[in-house]
């Protein structure tokens, strides 16, 4: 599953769904909102392009790593400290491939997917 959504997601459910018959390892990356002396963040997304890039990143990961599945959900809209931002689950036969693919995917997301983060504090707003 690839999605961008305003809604929160169920981490346990996504991990359960990542279990495949050939799975021996599931690696997850969960990005959450850090308290950098801010009140919240606001994430803006170019949804059509973001979905296209996420699908492409998944396709490359599935091709280049010995893995069974990739699922990515990325939120947008206003998010508070501690809220979930992004969840990646990678299922593979073995842990090394799962770790490597998951790291590749989050780095690709940070580099390519059109999502922007604005930090909002008591008396400031700044794009990151």
């Amino acid at each position: 599953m690839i999605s961008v959504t305003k809604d929160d997601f169920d981490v346990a459910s996504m991990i359960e769904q990542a279990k495949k018959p050939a799975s021996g390892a599931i690696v997850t990356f969960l990005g959450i909102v850090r308290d950098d002396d801010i009140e919240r963040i606001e994430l803006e997304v170019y949804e059509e392009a973001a979905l296209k890039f996420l699908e492409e990143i998944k396709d490359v990961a599935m091709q280049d790593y010995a893995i069974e599945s990739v699922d990515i959900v990325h939120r947008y809209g206003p998010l508070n400290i501690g809220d979930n931002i992004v969840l990646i689950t990678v299922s593979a036969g073995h842990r090394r491939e799962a770790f490597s693919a998951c790291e590749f995917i989050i780095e690709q997301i940070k580099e390519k997917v059109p999502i922007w983060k604005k930090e909002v504090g008591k008396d400031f707003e700044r794009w990151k």
Partner: protein
Amino acid sequence: MQIRLRTFAQVKEILGADRMIECPYGSSVRWLLNTIRQSSAEADILFAENGDLKGHLIRMLNSIRIDREYFDNLILSEGDELALFPPVSGG
């Protein structure tokens, strides 16, 4: 013909929200960018002295990234969507 301009993040704050722009048939991406530049005094900050968009800005036509060397030769079609935005920061 109508071309949809999509703007995001800081570019949206400068150019305003998404809007339709009327273009003559046969217009290039360069023509559209010049039109955008002339649309407001604030828009000029996005452009370099030679008229190109500043280097850090990203351009997508129908969700496909386009490099500046194609601005002159890429001809727009009815319903095209040009997106302008700064470097991304998701994840």
